[in-house]
Every structure is written in C-alpha cells, then in structure tokens.
C-alpha cells in the first residue's frame, strides 16, 4: 500500500474536490458574470437613480438623494394615469386578439393540405422585419390620404370617409393595437401550432368514438391539452407587449395629444428628452414591479387551476 503523509493527502483531496466543483461553475460563470455586470448592476443603479434627482447637470457626478420625491412626482403627474390606462388597454386587447387569431391560424395550419408547411413558415417573415420598418409601413398604410387601408375599408363599404387613423386621438390607440396584433401573430402561431402538434391523435379518435363532435373535441381535448402553450403565449405576450417601445415611438410617439402614450414612451420622454433621469427611472421601476406582480399572480393562478383539475 502506498503511504502518503495523511495530512498531505487530505490537502490534495480538498484542493482536487474544490477544483472539480469549480469546474462545473465555470460553465455558467461567464454568462452569470455578464448578466450581473450588464443587467443586474444597471438595474440596481436604476433603482438608486430613482431615488436621486439626476438630471443633465448631475449626470456624471451623481445627483442628490431625494427619497420618494420622484415617485410622488410621477403619481402626481397628470400624464401617468392615462399612460397606465393606455398600457393596460393596449396590452390587453393586443394579447387577446393575438392569441385568438394565432389559435385560429394554428388550427388551420394543423390540417393537412398541400404546401401547408412551407406557407406557415412564411408567417415568420413578419418576425424578420425590424419594428422600425413595420412602423413606417403601417404609417403609410394607415395614411389619411393615400393609405391602402382607407381605400380597402371604403371599397368594402365599412366607412365612407377616409380617416387619418394615427393622427386622430380617438382612433390612434385602436390603430396601434391593430398594428401590434399583426406583429404578434407569428409568435402565437408558432408556439400554439407546436402545442397542437404535440397532442396525440389517439385522444381525438377516442373522443370521436365516444360521440364528440368537432366543437366538443375542441373544448374537451384541444383546449386542455394546449394549456401549457396557451400559458406561455399569454404570459410572454403580455410581458413583451407591456414593455414595447419601438412600435409606439415610430408610429405615434405617444401622440396625438398623448392618446397613445404608454408607460415605456412616458419614461423615455423623461429620461432622454427632458433629462429628468430620476423621474424616468421611477416610472420604469414601477413598470417592472407591475410586470413581476402580474407574472407571479398569473403563474400562481395557473398552478392552482392545474391542481384543481
């Protein structure tokens, strides 16, 4: 038997074991360090900034601490509640329609017909277009004078006079929602389609034997089986839509007359236009808290329902 100095052996053993444990951590280390530095640290900074009076002048040196003043200013700001309302309405209607239309399309493309696989891939094209370009095109399409949509609606007899959809306060938000729905359909379609394809055909066959018609099959088999996919689409869709900035900024910049002001644009104005960075940071923190709360409540409610079923 080879005799090592027992002490020496133990030292090497501990060093070796540490080395091996560290080896595992090395895999996640780069990403974690990166996220901590570029994500977590800035966010903590954001929280701190929201408690400071940071403006153009104090940008590089840091501003004085003002406690909750920024938050109070935000709540007192007459634009805050409308922005919040708009965000909620915008998100709610967008996601609602995105999911319904996405589901209908998914059901359609789940059927067998020539070319279905190639064509459903084409919806992904919308994903490739930068939102800037999409915004530009839809501004063009919704144009009051020569926009195609006005022409199409008039030809179909739905309206008689052309509207400047994005320039009228009463129609701007609905028009924006319309554009956002277009943007969100590919994602919903893909995820729901993947979910549909995961449902074993034998379930439908069993249901048909039991006498269920197409509607009953949809209600009792498709919807329950699609639960995880629907959950993902609604949760992710809500999160993404709530924080959307580019689309609103390009098409309306929050106007006309703040009719489409949503929280992200609201914050942007504070930080990058009025350089009231502290106040803007406060708005953003509020947004994040709202999203976090929504996600937690949503997931909790979903899990409860699952347990009851």
């Amino acid at each position, binding site marked *: *038997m*080879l005799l*090592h100095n027992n002490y020496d*052996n133990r030292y*090497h*053993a501990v060093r*070796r*074991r540490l080395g*091996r444990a560290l080896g595992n951590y090395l895999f996640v280390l780069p990403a974690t360090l990166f996220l901590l530095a570029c994500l977590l640290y800035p966010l903590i900074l954001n929280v701190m900034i929201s408690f400071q009076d940071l403006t153009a002048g104090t940008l590089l040196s840091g501003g004085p601490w003002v406690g909750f003043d920024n938050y109070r200013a935000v709540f007192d700001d007459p634009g805050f509640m409308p922005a919040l309302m708009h965000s909620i309405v915008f998100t709610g209607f967008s996601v609602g329609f995105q999911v319904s239309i996405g589901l209908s399309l998914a059901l359609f493309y789940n059927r067998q017909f020539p070319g279905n696989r190639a064509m459903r891939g084409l919806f992904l094209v919308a994903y490739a277009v930068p939102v800037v370009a999409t915004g530009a095109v839809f501004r063009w399409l919704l144009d009051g004078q020569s926009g195609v949509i006005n022409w199409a609606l008039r030809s179909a007899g739905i309206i008689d006079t052309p509207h400047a959809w994005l320039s009228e306060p009463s129609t701007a938000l609905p028009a924006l929602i319309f554009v956002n729905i277009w943007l969100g359909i590919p994602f919903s379609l893909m995820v729901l389609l993947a979910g549909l394809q995961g449902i074993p055909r034998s379930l439908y066959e069993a249901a048909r034997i039991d006498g269920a018609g197409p509607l009953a099959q949809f209600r009792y088999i498709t919807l329950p089986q699609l639960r995880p996919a629907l959950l993902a689409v609604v949760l992710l869709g809500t999160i993404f839509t709530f924080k959307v900035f580019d689309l609103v900024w390009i098409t309306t910049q929050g106007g006309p007359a703040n009719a489409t002001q949503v929280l992200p644009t609201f914050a942007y104005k504070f930080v990058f236009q009025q350089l009231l960075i502290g106040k803007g940071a406060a708005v953003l923190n509020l947004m994040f808290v709202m999203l976090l709360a929504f996600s937690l409540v949503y997931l909790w409610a979903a899990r409860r329902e699952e347990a009851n079923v």
Partner: protein
Amino acid sequence: MAGVTFDRVTKDFDGGVRAVAELELEVRDGELMVFVGPSGCGKTTALRMVAGLEDASDGDIRIGERVVTQLDPRERDIAMVFQNYALYPHMTVFDNIAFGLKMHGVKRVEIDERVRRISGILGLDDFLSRKPRQLSGGQRQRVAMGRAIIREPHVFLMDEPLSNLDARLRGQMRAEISRIQRELETTTMYVTHDQVEAMTMGHRVAVMRKGQLQQVDVPQVLFDSPANLFVASFIGSPSMNLIQAPLERDGDELVARIGEQRLPLPPEAIARNPRVADFAGRVVALGIRPEHFELVGAGEGLRGTVVLTEALGSERLIHVEVEASPVVTDEVLEVAVDTDVAAAEGLKWEASQRRTVVVTRFGVEVAANVGDSVELRAAPGKAYFFDLETGRAI
C-alpha cells in the same frame, strides 16, 4: 495490470440517501467480478465511483497501487461500457472507436491499425463508416465494447451492458464478453441485476443490498453456502424455498414443528450446523432449494399436496402446498418484489394462512399429478438454517 480496491467507500446523495455504505472489497487483478443485487442496491453507484463519474463521500478507491479517489475519469486509465452504449451519434463507428485514442494523442497511422484490428475481432469491418443509428442493438453493443477494449486500460467497467438485448443475443454476448475478458486478462467490474449472468460470467460475485455488501465469493460457494437470507433467496432460480420452522427440544432430538407435523432434524444436520441447537424454543428459517428435495414414503417427511406441475423438457417443477408459513422478512420480500410486484402480497397472504407453496425440481421420471399427496425431505446436507432476526446463516 491492476486490481480495484474499495477502502471503506461511502456515498451519500442529497436528501440523505446512502447509496453505498462503507464498502470494503478488493477486485483482484485480472478477475471479472460481477456486482449483483436488486435495483437501488448501490452496485451501479459503486461502479460509477470507480469511473470517477460520482465522487465518494468518504473512503478511498485504489486502482492498483494508485489512489484515484480524487482523479478525473480521464486520469484513471479505465474504460466503460454503458447500458445504453452512449455511442457518439454524429460520428462513424470508426471514429467512435478511435475517439479515446485520439484524445490520448495516438498517431493516426497507429489509430488506423488498431481500430481495424479490433473491428476484425468484433466483426465490425463492414460497419466502420456507418453511424450508430444505422446499426442494430447487437452491433451497437459491439461498438461500445470496441471503444472500451481498444484503449487497453487497467480496468473495464461494465454497467448492465446486455440488458437491452433480446434473450438469444444476450446468451451469445455473455460468452463473447467472458472470452474476451479471459484473453485480455483485464480486471473487470461487471454490474447486472440478472443472476444468471452473475453466476455464469463471474470469477467471483459480489451480492449487494441497500448499499451494503452481503457476500462475495465464487458463484458455487454463494449457491452452496449463502451467508444470509438475502443471498439465499437472491441466488438460484427458482428461489430457495424458505419456511418458518419453530424448533423444540424433544429429549435428545431437535424437532421442527411445521404445521401439524413434528419433524426431527437428522443428527448429521445438527453436526454440520451445531449452533442450531441454540435456537431450541425459537423459530428459525428453514431453506431448501428446489433441486434438493427427495420424495419419501409416508410418515417420513413433510406432507403436502401437489397443486401444479410444470414440464420443462428435461425436468419437472412440482409445486407442493404444505402447511407451513413462508418467511416474510424484508430481504425475502425485496427479492420477491424484484421479480414480480404482486409476489410480496402473495407471500404475506400465504403467511396469514399458514400455508405455502414449495417449489421442487425433479427429473422427468418423477410422476406426480395435481391433487396427489406427497412427502418431501431435504437431501442430506442440503437443509439451510437462518436466524429470522438477523437473517444470517446459522
């Protein structure tokens, strides 16, 4: 050349599960030791600790003279055949076999030569440029073997390599693996839950249960002299019959009261197991293997009624119902459940009824029909006694 030594090796998993408990064992240089036992007994964990895929919580593992406990798998000079083969799907058979050599910096010319030699031995010449998904189960198994053999390591580790093959292929490969191992004389640790593999392939067999080594010896000794109830019921197929036997002193004789009968223990049985005498007044487990029964005349043995006969070509299995309670200790139930989940319930029910079915094995010349009354006796020297509390052989 090197043996494998377990020096008080323990493995605890998160959650408090102790998979291996203070294992002390030596696999001799050049031998094929089979590790056998029911699922969860720790045999695979022990193997993976030798491989370096699991860290030992305590104790040391040595390969030859080297302490390898803290070394990475690639520093241990071992090779492993996995249960699911773990062939690299994106590489050809040639590259799969060559991979280990490539990692160790062997020159391409030499790799080429060695791979072709191995593929010749294993009959893989026609498949060298195919990918694993194009091969059958048996072919994949051979590629896995080739990958292990080619590195000429100090130790082979095999984790249930045959369990995914059909019965006939399994028989063929059993012989192949034994032959290769004997030719190469490489120390081999072979894990299986199939005791037929254990008995036919191993120089020695280590029986494990709940992380503890029950007995390690050559197969024949495990069969002839099981150290405890677990080994006795695990080894042998069909299992050893175990019935509860209350012992009483009747003058000079020791008598077993089984059911209504009082059967005296023959003096030579007591002579061979003198400590049995200490158990007078207590209940012991009496074990008799199916092949060790004799049919005797009326009044000379244990009475029973034939309930089933199974003709197996060259022999007959005769199931006899006797008035006796089966042994239902934990070990026995564990073995029963491993083969058939419902068997444990059956045993317990039998115990409550104080009747059990004893399986006997005779040649075809023995004729018995269902409903016949027979009397059974253990062949001389073939009665085993076990302490019901500790499970150990008496």
